[in-house]
């Protein structure tokens, strides 16, 4: 039982991270019907930027742990959002009217470019987060010992998801995003500036993805320039699992995939851990391509 709950909470922590990344995929897909292959790399940038800012500015020494990390999160979010906007401008906007394949190839090119830029700057080796900064305490819940960092990650991702959900559902801008996702030309006729909506999506998505990268750095203590690819694929799986284009779906899908993967790694085989996520991806696309929460949309002919 103890083992089960440890795996469950670990799965939720990883799943929260997947969900935060998946939100970026699903929002972009909702508005542009494009798989933003470079999103996983913006996640990696978040992890590396976090590491650089954490060590060079010594935020936690100056401001204390809680405030220091909060400032760090905001800085990473801001920088990742700027990168996202640049990406949209450079790689996707020129191809807005092009066939699908062109946009997909450009997205892949952007992903390869971003990844290798990072490699040339930092080198190909794993980068290690300083372990003396992070809390290593464990919390005792009725005799169950959970690492503090894991609890914080679950909490932080849930808070951010809730904030995004409220933003999308309750604000005027959020309504505009939802409208543009349903029908771009009708939204334009209603006076919504679709270009601004797209830009906004490319600010919010990478900001959340960047924080997810920072979380991975803080949780596992080490980051690698290629990690965005595998996390990106899994987060995309999570987005499809929940129903692509569907924001609550991405949250549910992320948490679910994290738990499935943790359970699979614990009770089936750890060597096949990465394959489990891909099997989930293939199964869901065969059985229910609209995802768990996705509505059935008639194919446009």
């Amino acid at each position, binding site marked *: 039982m103890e083992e089960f709950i440890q795996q469950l909470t670990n799965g939720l922590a990883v799943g929260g991270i997947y969900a935060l990344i998946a939100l970026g995929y699903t929002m972009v897909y909702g508005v542009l019907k*494009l*798989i933003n292959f470079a999103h996983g790399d913006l996640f990696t940038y978040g992890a590396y930027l976090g590491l650089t800012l954490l060590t060079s500015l010594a935020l936690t020494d100056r401001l204390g742990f809680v405030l220091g990390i909060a400032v760090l999160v905001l800085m990473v979010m801001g920088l990742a959002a700027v990168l996202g906007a640049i990406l949209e401008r*450079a*790689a996707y906007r*020129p*191809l807005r009217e*092009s*066939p*699908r*394949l*062109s*946009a*997909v*190839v*450009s997205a*892949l*090119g*952007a*992903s*390869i*470019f*971003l*990844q*290798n*830029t990072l*490699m*040339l700057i930092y080198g190909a080796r794993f980068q290690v987060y300083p372990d003396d900064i992070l809390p290593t305490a464990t919390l005792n819940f009725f005799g169950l010992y959970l690492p503090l960092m894991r609890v914080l990650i679950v909490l932080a991702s849930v808070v951010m998801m809730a904030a995004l959900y409220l933003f999308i559902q309750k604000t005027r801008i959020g309504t505009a995003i939802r409208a543009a996702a349903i029908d771009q030309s009708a939204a334009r006729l209603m006076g919504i500036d679709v270009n601004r909506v797209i830009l906004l999506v490319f600010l919010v998505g990478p900001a959340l993805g960047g924080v997810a990268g920072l979380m991975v750095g803080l949780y596992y203590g080490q980051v690698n320039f290629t990690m965005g*690819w595998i996390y990106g*694929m899994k987060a*995309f*799986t999570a987005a*499809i699992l929940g129903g692509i284009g569907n924001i609550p779906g991405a949250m549910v899908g992320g948490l679910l995939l994290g738990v499935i993967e943790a359970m699979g790694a614990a009770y089936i*085989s750890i*060597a*096949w851990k*990465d*394959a489990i996520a*891909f*099997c989930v*991806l*293939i199964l869901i*696309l*065969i059985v229910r*391509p609209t995802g768990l929460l996705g509505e059935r949309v008639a194919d446009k*002919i």
Partner: protein
Amino acid sequence: MKRFEPFAIALFAALLAVAPLFLNTYQVDVLNSIGLYALLALSLNLILGEAGLFNMGHAAFYAIGAYTAAILNTRYQVPILWTLPLSGLIAGLFALAVARPVVHLRGDYLLIVTIGVGEIVRIALVNDVFGLTGGANGIFGISRPKLFGFVIRQPQEFYYLIWGFVALTIFLFLRIKRSRFGRALNYLREDEVAAEGSGINTDYYKLAAFGLGAAWAGMAGTLFAAKMTIISPESFSFWESVVLFMIVILGGAGSIAGILLAAFLVIGLPELFREFAGARMLVFGLVMMVMMVVRPQGLLPARGR
């Protein structure tokens, strides 16, 4: 322009035929790599270029061919070139089995699924599936190919084996392209709904493209295993699939000449600029982005007939 084409092709073929006489062993080896990639890209072209199916897991089929050949050769002492038909067959059947349930998926969904298939195959190879694949170390001690009692050992000898196979492939694929089958694939790529409306069994043709392309990649895998004598899962990573995808797109989907040119550029150019090896992928990424804006149809696009 069209008038000079036969001469250009003849000149190119003649240059390739005599090239090993003037080049050193290293340069011939680079040409061998180019030939293998050209072969793989041509097989992917059948799926991606002719039929317009986004397949980014082509390395999986290549891997299955290479491993089939290596297992048959090291365990059952089957001469490596004799395994060619069987590696092709197994890779093709595998492609049919995995493509059957997903082939109706729309463009980028298919892309994601094929990436997933490619990764699952690679992970299976690393995990020594069925105790046959040798895990992360792979399989070594694959014997040299023998052709009519002549053992092929030197890169110069492999050169003629590989490029001979490329020539055969080009001949066959040109015939396919001009056949009823090839036209059906092109119709699918241009407008699937119209194709279906005209009585083309879309699922059948899509699967046929997948099976044939994968079978060809499997045979290229056999040649790879024979050339290297050692194979391991890292030779069949996701990036191999990306490089093949890129060769087809950069050259011009559906254009055999374009794909050959792109294979020379993508595989050959980095060898000329070895001191910048670290920046190689960076440049590729940039080129992919710029090409899609400036020249999305590829360097030498296929001409309509």
